[in-house]
């Protein structure tokens, strides 16, 4: 374990902030005050945080429809996010994007994406920019298990390999795409092996274990920074909520989620690990969690108090000039 205590705190803070954020969004959404759809990331925190911990502002991530976790892992402002989810002025996208399009280019977060698989070619573009302008940055593309069956993703992998771009694909295998199991939808039954056949190394790792994800990503990121081209990981971890909030989840086995939460929760695994290694104590961790909760509470209060965009916002931001 090569991480400093500070790093571990940062990682845990990001993970619990995602958890607190998502569990609160689930509640807020049920009130009916949050418009549209939300796809919650709870359960997969170790993937986003493990993938993003070593990134800095010159690095760029491309997200999916399930984007809140990626935002938080990349350092987006919690209040700006919550304002956006409520469709309020001052939201990260001024209330025009919502959950499915949440983005913060200043933080290197290229956006959630409502089109499954569409983020993969975009992140290859971010890789092209990094290579062409020699920014030293890397580009990380998150791709769901269901999304791995999209033509866009296949083409993106091949193009990244052909151009040897500094790209890392993070295949988030949460076993399900909407209401379809990965074993049905991925004919070969093996996302990592199929991706590797495109000509890059792809590790399959336990996505519930932050340390495993982080370690695997370290190799990928180093490879990209060294100019050795793309690579990827397939990280497995379940989602705890429905495909979208409100989904009855009748496609799941009874108690499936309860079992996940009880037996292999990524936060518990992390906690156990750092306590066993005497790196952080219960107090530390509880304090971080309390802070995260307070942050989310504040964000919700701010969002609920904020005004919606005004009529003059309807026709701005379509073009730079027209």
């Amino acid at each position: 374990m090569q991480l400093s205590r500070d790093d571990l705190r940062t990682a845990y803070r990001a993970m619990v902030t995602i958890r607190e954020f998502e569990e609160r969004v689930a509640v807020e959404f049920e009130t009916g005050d949050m418009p549209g759809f939300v796809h919650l990331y709870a359960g997969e925190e170790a993937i986003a945080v493990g993938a993003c911990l070593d990134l800095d502002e010159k690095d760029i991530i491309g997200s999916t429809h399930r984007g809140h976790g990626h935002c938080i892992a990349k350092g987006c402002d919690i209040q700006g996010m919550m304002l956006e989810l409520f469709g309020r002025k001052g939201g990260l996208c001024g209330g025009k994007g919502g959950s499915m399009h949440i983005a913060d280019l200043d933080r290197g977060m290229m956006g959630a994406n409502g089109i499954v698989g569409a983020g993969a070619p975009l992140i290859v573009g971010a890789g092209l920019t990094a290579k062409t302008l020699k920014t030293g940055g890397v580009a990380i593309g998150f791709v769901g298990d269901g999304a791995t069956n999209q033509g866009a993703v296949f083409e993106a992998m091949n193009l990244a390999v052909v151009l040897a771009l500094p790209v890392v694909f993070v295949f988030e295998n949460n076993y399900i795409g909407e209401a379809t199991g990965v074993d049905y939808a991925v004919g070969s039954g093996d996302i990592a092996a199929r991706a590797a056949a495109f000509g890059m190394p792809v590790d399959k790792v336990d996505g519930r274990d932050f340390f495993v994800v982080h370690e695997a990503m370290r190799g990928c990121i180093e490879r990209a920074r060294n100019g050795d081209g793309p690579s990827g990981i397939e990280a497995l971890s379940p989602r705890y909520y429905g495909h979208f909030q409100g989904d009855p989840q009748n496609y799941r086995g009874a108690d499936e989620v309860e079992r996940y939460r009880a037996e292999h929760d990524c936060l518990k695994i992390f906690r156990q690990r750092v306590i066993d290694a005497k790196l952080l104590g219960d107090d530390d961790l509880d304090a971080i969690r309390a802070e995260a909760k307070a942050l989310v509470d504040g964000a919700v209060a701010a969002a609920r108090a904020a005004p919606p965009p005004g009529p003059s916002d309807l026709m701005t931001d379509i073009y730079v000039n027209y």
Partner: protein
Amino acid sequence: MPQKTMRQAINEALRQEMERDPRVVVIGEDVAGGAGLDGEADAFGGVMGVTKGLYGQFGEGRVIDTPISETAIMGMAAGSAATGLRPVAELMFCDFMGVCFDQILNQAAKFRYMFGGKATTPLVVRTTYGAGLGAAAQHSQSLYGMFTAVPGIKCVVPSNAYDAKGLLIQAIRDDDPVIFFEHKMMYDLRDEVPDEAYTIPFGEANIVHNGGDVTIVALGNMVRVAVKAAEKLSEDGIGAEVIDLRTTSPLDEETILESVEETGRLVVVDEANPRCGIAADISALVAREAFEMLKSPVRMVTAPHAPVPFAPELEKLYLPNADKVIAAVREIIG
């Protein structure tokens, strides 16, 4: 007559045609749902629940769940249609046409012409459109104009449950590729819908409100808006004839032109963006063919030239409504 939601009406159309013809299959993402998982089979019946129950009745050979691969879905549907099936493929949101348009634009639409009349492609693509759910820019578009533009494609936009059933049965029995647009805010609207199968022919618009002062052409979910406007206008003594297009391709030019010849005035109401869309198309038709009878400028009440915004306050401003239609009518009636 029994009251049914549009969701039920569409489901019934599919069920009856599948019972009638073993070549009819349903293809799409989670059109059953639950494949490869531990819970229920037929868990979704499509993300809007429209195909619910078909899997139980017809099995996995006729209700075919797919990976998230729209190009392969549309291509498989087109290829199977050209070789003997009568597939009904689902494109969850019409916005997703961007990832699979080739199979419609260059394949299904053009087989017959390119192959000198030797291909028949009885393909139906069901898809959803429209704003109102807070689903933002990539899940709220009204893209029927782009399909209407394509020779070889037929394009259907029903405005109520009764029409949806009859038009969908017609689409399934039709030998040409048909894109069938369902407004996602209309699934729970009820209407009188007969239990038995029936068809509504393509290219026959429906006059849903009578009046002699202005012609209002609308389609899909905008028909309700137009009728609401017409009702208010009639309270003020202005007679609006509301024409529900039902199909944009083929287009019932005759009904539109006859009406405008009577009223001398045209307002088109369309939820899509204004450039190169149905509203412009109808306006141009009238400016070409009924100019002499036209007493005033035509008016288009559409969404603006902007993506669909997320915030409900903006989305509401974005959409046409009865007040905007009334304002447009008053402008040209003076």
